[in-house]
């Protein structure tokens, strides 16, 4: 440990991305400390195929990488914060008929929350991860910008939208200028022991991505059967619990309607799942809550953006405007109706490569806007 070098904590999962991120920081001259967050009870691993991060295997892999890089390495027990800020809201959201993005909360509260606090406590200037995203400071406004990385296919800005200016100032994404292939090549060239590991699964605490089984096992008391109805309110069948459904879902409805039916709405208050034709799962807009602004301090006028409503959805041209008096709520209207606007999912607004801000989808706005209500095309573009 040489004095004077800025210290950075790297969150290491044992996978190729965070390992290369750590290696790059070491080469850039930082005083790097590797950490793995233990989010599972000791000795209990998620059952099933085990390729997820944050397990004991991950710890072993990350420790080997840290050793190879010659950096100190520690495991932090973040089970409690993870349970409280990720797992509990995840379950709660499903029981409320929503479809959550737990990775968003993990980034907000765990990796760039509790871990960032720990990093600052240990004298580090930042937390670094293997996320594919870019952070830059706007020379004019001084604001910290979250931007798409070079590898657009791996773009993870969608799960980073809640980061505040204070958080972004203390975040490092060393992989921003690289493609995934280049990252694998960097790992190979450095003989990191992870170069050939497969991609990890989608939600780290859900084995085999089977969230329905997870809910059945972890919240059985809250999963109540109810009715499946059509958009006219006619009862078509029974469902085992609203938590098992998401907007746009076609399979697993157990209906013999003679034509494909899709989940078009979930009404947790009535404990009902509403099904309809494919087109009925489309919406012209959405209302977002818990909005966080990144590129701008706030929104007073309508503005033109591209909106992403799911991790892998294409960006949809849209106009955002303040919704009523609540600065944390935003109305977002698409130029063209979008399929499966799903409450609980994140919506992230972009202006080119820049993340303008994001929020949680509170509700879909199904109705086509009346002609002449707004003229979205004339709204100014942001950033």
């Amino acid at each position, binding site marked *: 440990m040489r004095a004077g070098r800025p210290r950075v904590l790297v969150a290491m999962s044992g996978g190729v991305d965070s390992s290369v991120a750590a290696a790059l920081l070491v080469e850039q001259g930082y005083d790097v400390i590797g950490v793995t967050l233990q989010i599972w009870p*000791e000795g209990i691993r998620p059952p099933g195929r085990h390729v997820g991060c944050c397990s004991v295997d991950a710890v072993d892999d990350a420790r080997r990488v840290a050793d190879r890089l010659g950096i100190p390495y520690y495991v932090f027990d973040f089970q409690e*914060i993870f349970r409280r*800020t990720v797992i509990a809201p995840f379950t709660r959201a499903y029981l409320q008929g929503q479809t959550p993005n737990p990775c968003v909360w993990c980034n*907000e509260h765990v990796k760039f929350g509790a871990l*960032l606090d720990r990093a*600052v*406590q*240990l004298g580090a200037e930042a937390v670094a991860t293997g996320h594919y995203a870019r952070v830059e400071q706007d020379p004019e406004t001084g604001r910290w910008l979250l931007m798409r990385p070079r590898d657009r296919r791996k773009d993870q800005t969608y799960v980073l939208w809640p980061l505040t200016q204070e*958080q972004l100032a203390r975040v490092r994404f060393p992989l921003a200028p690289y493609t995934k292939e280049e990252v694998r090549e960097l790992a190979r060239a450095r003989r990191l022991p992870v170069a050939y590991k497969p991609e990890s699964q989608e939600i780290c605490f859900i084995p085999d991505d089977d969230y329905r089984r997870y809910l059945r096992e972890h919240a059985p008391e809250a999963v109540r059967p109810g009715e499946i109805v059509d958009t006219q309110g006619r009862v078509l069948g029974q469902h085992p619990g609203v938590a098992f459904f998401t907007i746009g879902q076609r399979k697993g409805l157990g209906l013999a309607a003679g034509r494909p039916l899709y989940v078009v709405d979930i009404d947790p208050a009535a404990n009902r799942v509403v099904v309809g034709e494919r087109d009925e799962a489309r919406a012209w807009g959405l209302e977002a809550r818990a909005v966080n602004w990144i590129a701008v301090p706030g929104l007073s006028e309508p503005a033109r953006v591209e909106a992403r409503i799911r991790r892998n959805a294409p960006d949809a041209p849209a106009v955002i405007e303040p919704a009523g008096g609540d600065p944390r709520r935003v109305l977002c209207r698409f130029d063209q109706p979008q399929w499966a606007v799903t409450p609980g999912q994140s919506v992230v607004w972009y202006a080119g490569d820049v993340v303008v801000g994001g929020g949680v989808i509170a509700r879909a706005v199904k109705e086509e806007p009346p002609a002449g209500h707004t003229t979205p095309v004339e709204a100014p573009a942001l950033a």
Partner: protein
Amino acid sequence: MMKDVIYLDNAATTPMCPRARETMARLIEHGLADANPSSPHRPGRRVRALLDDARDAVARLVGATPGEILFTSGGTESDNLGLRGAAHAMLRERGRRGVVVSAIEHHAVLEAARALEREGFVVEVAPCTRQGVVTREAVELAVGRIEARGERVGVIAVMLVNNEVGTVQPVADVAALARSRGALVMTDAVQAPFAEELDVERLGCDVMALSAHKFGGPQGVGLLYVRRGVPFDPILFGGGQERVLRPGTENVAGIVGLAAALAWAREERQAIEAHKRRLEARLLARLQERVPDVELNTGDAPRSPGLLSLHVPGIEAEALLVELDLAGVACSYGAACSSGSLRPSHVLQAMGLDEARVRCSIRVSIGPFNTLEEMDRAADRMAAAIGKLRAAGRTAVTVVGGVSVS
């Protein structure tokens, strides 16, 4: 490892003593253990003689006879074999299904007890006092609960010295109680190799576990004392080694190293304990002078010298241990676990400490090879680390979990 690291994690592993080092090095260098001690030939018999000599020496050192000593792979195996071997045999021979373990046992005992419970044994846990001591009365109440459930107690397990907080347990009293109830008593003495009372007659125990790397021997070898004539079953099956109770070719080099280390530990016992006591006093005095609110979690309970559970108010152990590691002081949370992360100490929880106090406690364990001068430097580095973290604690960026997410 940094040259300058002060090693204060002797309860996890104590560095090997010169006697064990030299003995094992000679053995390996000259190929003295290069045959199977069970083989029917001269080389085999020569190795067997080393094993027999080690067993004789070890037996003498703990007040046992050679036939009562089993060699194992270490503390965890000794604890498992000890508890399970006794419990199964007491059920089979005496129809006794009850097992009492103290709340502050090592996980090797607690988890073995949990496994027994899954197999149909009736398990009761004896709590400890606020200071980390399991009283005879607490054990008696646990036995009463077994009887209230319609079973008789077969085995009682109470450790001699707790591995996380260092408190000495009244094993002799518990053994007397066990005898009066017709139960066996097992004691995990892994953290008590230098203790005066480490003698099976003095303790009155039926089963006793030790691990070589806690007293200057090598890792991966331990021993289990099993009193002659008590019911006892194996948990491994195979060859006839160790009186069929622990089959498998013996780790002869390790066992010879264990015997050499135990001889050293018992011969030098008083000097070692006095040394650790002196070092501990120096460390505590200097640390508390600089950080007055640091305190022992065990109050004035009887404690093995050098093994300290320290509460540092407001400083999470996880952060403190990182800072100490970077500053060149190696200590730990409680028990060393596989991933190396902190899990809330079950011992501190059993003592009834609140969550904050549990999370803000570290274990410092001084060993025979630490020096007085190291204590001064360790205290200074600890004080500096605590000061740094306390200063940084006032500048957190985010409020952990303070934002509602739903």
